[in-house]
């Protein structure tokens, strides 16, 4: 952006007075360009790839989402640099799909470099980027290890054949509870609405997980062809539980703070987190996939449209699809790895780890988890508006 402005200023031979006179108008136009919402132009064009000369890579990822050693370095990433000569600038730049999108959307619409050559985002957000033409088409010749991808993840409805995105880690959404307060445990989403837990239940602000679990409890196949009535029935359940004060709060990642402070004793939560807080704050939480089924989501690599280092990003994806590397990451982050063979590689390091169903689920566990089907723009707008109206208490 700034580089473009300087170039523009150089090209136009303005004298000082004209420049000053134009500054006001220019400032307005500039601000408008920067703040344009959506933009009237068509889909942006991918940037030219300069990976051959430029051996660097900017990677935007979530916090605690890669193996880290005690000094804060990333061992697998360091080995990647040794093997390929590509220096990776790893940035914990994503803390929420929506805020990250809010930050980069205008540059994406203009086809500019957003400062990340690959970003890791959740399925539904990836679907939006692909629909809007904000992701570059990957060259599978550069990612031979993609053959190790779990076949179940090869044909998602938003990216058939994984032309634009490659899974990084996945996880379940299910229910969890404080085993000291609820020794008997919970089995289904219905158990969360038990009057003993009034005011002590948390649910996630991620619509697809909270609504997914409630709709599964209502007997809806969330991966299949459900419609407005099924969603509204689910919304009614949530609205009632929130209005009755059964649900204490609706939160994103910070729901873990509520579990720790015991504001909530049971919650809808993400599988990997429970392993982490058990390690942090005493072994007293348990996670389960509800009897009616849980949701399964994935976070995926993609290459933003304005990135000039696509081949470097592909090299990174290829590297993380080596089973040994994937096992090392999975053992640290406690989420589900999409790489076939990682389980065997993990068994060589730690046999107990390889049996953990929340990291290396077998076919039986996977059959209880469902992927929330993709929504088109109109559905997304309608359903989010309903869901947000509960979050905003309107």
């Amino acid at each position, binding site marked *: 952006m700034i580089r473009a402005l300087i170039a523009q200023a150089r090209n136009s031979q303005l004298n000082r007075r004209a420049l*000053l006179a134009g*500054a*006001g108008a220019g*400032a*307005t136009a*500039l*601000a*408008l360009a920067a*703040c344009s*919402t*959506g933009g*009237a132009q068509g889909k942006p064009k991918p940037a030219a790839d300069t990976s051959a000369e430029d051996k660097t890579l900017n990677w935007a990822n979530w916090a605690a989402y890669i193996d880290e050693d005690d000094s804060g370095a990333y061992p697998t990433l360091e080995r990647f640099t040794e093997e390929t000569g590509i220096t990776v600038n790893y940035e914990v730049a994503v803390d*929420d799909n*929506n*805020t990250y*999108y*809010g930050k980069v*959307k205008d540059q994406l619409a203009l086809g500019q470099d957003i400062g990340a050559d690959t970003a890791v985002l959740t399925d539904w957000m990836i679907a*939006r980027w692909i*629909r*809007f033409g904000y992701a570059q088409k990957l060259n599978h010749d550069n990612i031979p290890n993609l053959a190790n991808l779990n076949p179940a993840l090869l044909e998602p409805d938003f990216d058939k054949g994984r032309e634009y995105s490659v899974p990084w880690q996945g996880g379940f959404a299910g229910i969890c509870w404080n085993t000291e307060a609820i020794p008997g445990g919970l089995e289904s989403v219905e158990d969360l609405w038990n009057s003993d837990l*009034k*005011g*002590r239940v948390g649910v996630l*602000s991620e619509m697809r997980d909270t609504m997914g679990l409630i709709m599964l409890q209502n007997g809806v196949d969330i991966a299949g062809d459900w419609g407005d009535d099924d969603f509204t029935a689910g919304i009614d359940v949530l609205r009632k539980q*929130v209005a009755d004060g059964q*649900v*204490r*709060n*609706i*939160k*994103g990642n*910070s729901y873990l*703070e*509520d579990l720790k*402070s*015991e*504001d909530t004793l049971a919650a809808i939560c993400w599988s990997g987190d429970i392993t982490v807080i058990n390690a942090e704050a005493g072994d007293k939480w348990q996670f389960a996939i509800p009897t009616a089924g849980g949701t399964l989501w994935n976070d995926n690599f993609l290459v933003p449209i304005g990135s000039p280092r696509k081949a470097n990003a592909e090299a990174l994806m290829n590297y993380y699809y080596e089973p040994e590397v994937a096992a090392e990451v999975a053992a640290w982050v406690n989420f589900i790895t999409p790489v076939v063979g990682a389980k065997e590689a993990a068994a060589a390091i730690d046999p107990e780890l390889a049996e953990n169903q929340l990291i290396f689920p077998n076919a039986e566990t996977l059959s209880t988890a469902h992927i929330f089907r993709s929504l*088109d*723009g*109109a559905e*997304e*707008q309608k359903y*989010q*508006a309903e869901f*947000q109206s*509960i*979050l*905003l*208490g*309107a």
Partner: protein
Amino acid sequence: MAFAAFQTAEAVPQAPKRHSRIALLLLLPGIAYLMLFFLAPLVSLLLTSLQAPREFGDIGQFDYAFNWQNYVTVVQSYLPHIMRSFGYALAATVLALLFSYPLAYFIGVKARRWPMLQALMLVLVIAPFFISFLLRTLAWKQILSDESFVITSLKALSLMAPDAHFTGTPFAVIFGLTYNFIPFMTLPLYTTLERLDLRYLEAGGDLYAGPFTVFRKVTVPLSMPGIVAGTLLTFIPAAGDYVNASRDFLGGTDTQMMGNVIEANFLVLLNYPAAAALSIILMAAILVLVGLYVKRAGTEDLL
């Protein structure tokens, strides 16, 4: 800004004797700054607030239009949040004033004899700023959580119902707003009270006014600039605050303020025109309320 205005308020305004080109030149950076970072975004915001959804467009796609109905729609949908914002902000401002006035009076008047104590107390008022207010608000959330010492003690003393809780309620949000904005109230009050001429109070007493009457008729009017500045510095940011009321901090689903609605519309619903319209309404409402208030308080030449 406000502080400087009040310090020079009593001086006789002096008009510059001649217009100088250099003065204009010196003004230029300021004007450019305002154009670039205030006027241009404001124009952009106004244009966005009038956008209409693109025909057959995807989520978050809008075209420039003159769709003034956006304003009607957001007021219809979010009137409770608008009222709540101003209600909470008013409550927090009044509470902050009640807490800050005695504090500022003590520091500025009673502690005059001990400059060290005065300095120390001022540092204590300002000290919280050394820690991010996000962290401090999160800390309160922990301190006031259900199983915390404070809440369990209150319940043990039957001052709170056994199944009641504090975080996520309107009280928690108003508490957070009050706590976070108290320094903004205390400091301007201190600057006026510190210069309060005690001989006026003596004169009041000599004229047979009781302590309360002296306070009401002498101290309060003399500290009015501080009260006006403090209430404005508290009310304006409190009305637009979205941190304390956020569900991630002290709020819950039924304490959401305008800032939270704007955030949800902008980031999640991608309804940029609604978010922009709400921002404009918030700004306009604050401008009107503050204008009325300043006019009533009779200190319009101070602004």
